[in-house]
């Protein structure tokens, strides 16, 4: 098992086994959501702090998410793996399943030690996966940055657990739940948790590793990281604030909401200007995590003002979006992976027109695009709809100032959702539609059978989550009930209509909506087919009569991002190289960078560098100076002793 060279064993046996295990996990989790929390003490761990494992509604939901998505990704991975890339397949397979196991362990951990062990094993195994093709320098750099920020995040999480145990020395979560932390320590714990889990989730100031690490990893791994690993950070956040701290303060919600909104806008604006397929999807993960964090902020806000039902609604929206994002983001990452595998090309400027050669991947990607853009029949829309409904109820807050701020927040969320539509049209249009921008794209082949099943499983997930929201909400009900004391599952309307509070207020029925829409489309198609003849003739494109059309006349990815660069100019750090008018070889180059890199990360690195320079003065090599140190220490201590 350690490092089997044979590719066949890994991809034909182990990955499908992983997929089946994922399904089994999902089934167990589904059943555990409704059961009462079961906890057990494992023989492993420290002598006086053995591993405690506990599955309650919250962890069962995330286990369900992990199992369902991992099933799809593992089936895809069994067809995706090819020898000769990066490490031997056996090692990759081992790390992959260690990654899955550690994520499951994070979700069931019930004491600080087990949680930290699982948390960093997850980071470590994903690091080895990210740097599986470690011959390129930038992949190594991405891996290093990823593990460094993950480790710093883990440090702040450890400090947060330190603050949570408030001096009792007992690090099991049950103890933390029982003791009533003083407000000061609780705030310190919340802020540390926000920093620690935010670093892993990719909240804006700490997001720099995400667009580097995800593209570097092989596609199934980046799908798994984007879909599930970010959610373990959200799970951690929920576990600490709603479960361990008890009653959160309302202004924590404002901080989380602000962080979420900034991440959402920042992520999507940067996604719009990317020219690398997987970096674009990574930035859009930052946007979706921003939406989830703003939903979480809203939950805290309502919980702070003890408005139970509204907190339940906001929490349902947050969890629903976690599930949706897991499905459609992994679908998009996997389709990008198939494109990458077929064409060996990741930059958008050298793709195009793949819908002819890869219809299966194209249509699954279309489902993903419509879902992520938050458009009605599919699942993206449902969670956005719930989130916007939650925002609409905020004017009921007792705090006057809050009532003003939250509509602005709703506007930002709407803008982010619209922008995600823009980004996804760019992604889909440039990759799949239009003319192929490279000659060799013509002999690409479609995805293999395994990969197709993976993609179809995830696409079906997106459609099902879109069309049956009421059943899913009833699934989320035990969680919201345990976290906020209220649940909206009971009166979320009949199986057909989703009406979270009451029907007059707002109701939406995706199934009816979908049926009527398809009915109308079929009627128009039939009426056109019956009444008028169907003569079709193939000819060259019209293009206003311009004969010499070639593939370079299409819009490139950078061109498509130009309006966003123009509108959101202050977000970026743009360095422009425009050619002189008389330049013999004019070269136009525009480099778009992240300002935060220069404001936060480089100053910290320089500070460490300065301190190091200061400290190395101690070791200048002269033996008499060393003797002087020892002499001085002796004299100092002797003086100090008397």
């Amino acid at each position, binding site marked *: 098992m350690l490092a089997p060279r044979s590719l066949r064993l890994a991809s034909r046996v182990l990955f499908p086994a992983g997929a089946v295990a994922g399904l089994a996990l999902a089934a167990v989790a589904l059943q555990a959501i409704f059961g009462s929390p079961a906890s057990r003490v494992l023989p492993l761990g420290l002598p006086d702090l053995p591993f405690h494992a506990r599955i309650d509604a919250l962890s069962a939901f995330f286990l369900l998410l992990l199992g369902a998505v991992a099933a799809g990704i593992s089936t895809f991975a069994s067809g995706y793996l090819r020898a000769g890339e990066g490490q031997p397949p056996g090692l990759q397979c081992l790390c992959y399943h260690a990654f899955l196991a550690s994520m499951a362990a994070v979700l069931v951990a019930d004491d600080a030690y087990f949680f930290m062990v699982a948390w960093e094993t997850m980071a470590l195994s994903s690091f080895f996966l990210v740097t599986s093709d470690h011959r390129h320098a930038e992949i190594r750099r991405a891996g290093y940055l990823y593990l460094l920020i993950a480790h710093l995040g883990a440090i702040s999480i450890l400090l947060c657990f330190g603050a949570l145990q408030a001096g009792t020395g007992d690090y099991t979560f049950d103890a933390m739940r029982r003791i009533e932390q003083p407000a000061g320590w609780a705030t310190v714990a919340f802020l540390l948790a926000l920093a620690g889990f935010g670093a892993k989730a990719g909240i804006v100031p700490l997001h720099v590793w995400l667009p580097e690490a995800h593209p570097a990893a092989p596609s199934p791994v980046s799908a798994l990281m984007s879909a599930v690993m970010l959610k373990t950070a959200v799970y951690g956040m929920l576990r600490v604030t709603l479960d361990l701290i008890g009653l959160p303060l309302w202004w924590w919600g404002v901080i989380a909401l602000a962080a979420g909104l900034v991440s959402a806008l920042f992520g999507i604006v940067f996604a719009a200007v990317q020219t690398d397929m997987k970096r674009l999807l990574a930035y859009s993960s930052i946007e979706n995590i921003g939406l989830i964090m703003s939903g979480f902020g809203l939950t805290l806000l309502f919980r702070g003002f003890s408005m139970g039902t509204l907190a339940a609604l906001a929490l349902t929206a947050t969890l629903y979006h976690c599930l949706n994002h897991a499905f459609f983001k992994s679908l998009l990452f996997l389709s990008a992976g198939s494109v990458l595998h077929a064409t060996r090309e990741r930059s958008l400027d050298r793709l195009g027109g793949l819908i002819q050669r890869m219809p299966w991947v194209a249509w699954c990607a279309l489902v993903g695009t419509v879902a992520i853009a938050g458009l009605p029949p599919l699942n993206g829309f449902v969670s956005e709809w719930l989130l916007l409904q939650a925002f609409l109820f905020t004017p009921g807050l007792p705090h006057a100032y809050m009532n003003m701020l939250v509509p602005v927040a709703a506007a930002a969320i709407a803008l982010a959702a619209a922008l995600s539509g823009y980004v996804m049209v760019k992604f889909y249009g440039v990759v799949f539609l239009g003319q192929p921008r490279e000659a060799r794209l013509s002999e690409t082949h479609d995805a293999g059978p395994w990969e197709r099943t993976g993609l179809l499983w995830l696409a079906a997930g997106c459609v099902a989550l879109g069309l049956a929201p009421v059943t899913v909400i009833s699934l989320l009900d035990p969680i919201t009930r345990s976290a906020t004391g209220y649940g909206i599952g009971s009166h979320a309307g009949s199986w057909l209509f989703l009406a979270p509070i009451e029907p007059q207020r707002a109701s939406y029925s995706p199934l009816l909506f979908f049926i009527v829409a398809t009915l109308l489309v079929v009627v128009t198609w039939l009426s056109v087919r019956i009444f008028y003849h169907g003569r079709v003739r193939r000819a060259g494109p019209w293009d206003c009569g311009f004969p010499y059309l070639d593939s370079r006349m299409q819009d490139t990815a950078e061109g498509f991002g130009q309006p966003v660069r123009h509108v959101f100019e202050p977000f970026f750090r743009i360095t422009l190289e425009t050619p002189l008018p008389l330049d013999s070889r004019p070269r136009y180059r525009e480099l778009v960078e992240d300002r935060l890199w220069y404001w936060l990360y480089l100053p910290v690195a320089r500070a460490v560098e300065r301190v190091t320079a200061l400290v190395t003065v101690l070791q200048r090599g*002269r*033996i*008499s100076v060393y003797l002087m140190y020892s002499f001085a220490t002796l004299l100092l201590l002797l003086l100090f002793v008397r």
Partner: protein
Amino acid sequence: MLQHFGPQVINLLAAVLLLLAFAMLSQRRILSLINLFAAQGFVLFLSTALVAALTDQKHLYVSAAVTLVLKVTLLPWILHRLIRRLNVKWDVETLINIPTTMLVGILLVILAFNLAAPISQLAGTVTRSTLGIALASMLLSFMMMITRSKAVPQVIGFLSMENGLFFAATAAVYGMPMVVELGVALDVLVAALILGVFIFEIRERFDTLDTRHLEKLKEH
């Protein structure tokens, strides 16, 4: 008569020891430095023998004999042979000039005394007042190692520090148990041999004994 004069003679010997330490601190020439070291060894032998006589401790005689053999004859002979083989006659370069070292030396002596004061009141031994001097001579030889840049003076500084420790042992507690005394003596001998080997190696590799050339291993 022995009981009466004994303590004064020991104090006298302690004073001579301190004087020798100062002399070594201010010495410029290697050969005289080695002779001073031998003298220090001899004084140490005398004091140990005297203490042994005063308190008729059998093992102190043995330790006095060892000191005589080791510190007065063997080590100085080794050092002389070393100097002759390396035909090194140059004077001892110091990092800071002699007057300032002397000043610092005096400060060290004062410090050593008021540090040793509480201990010596408690000491039941007849030679308790010499503890301060022993500590002072140890600190002075430590100081000598720091201020000398050549390898040989550093070695001599290290060995004179061992002498100071032995004198402290006899002054405070009538010498350590036998097995410890022998062990320490053995260690000092082996240390001297190894240092000799090293000095040859350094001389051969660096063709100078100035430790200022031994500074490549550092943080850039």
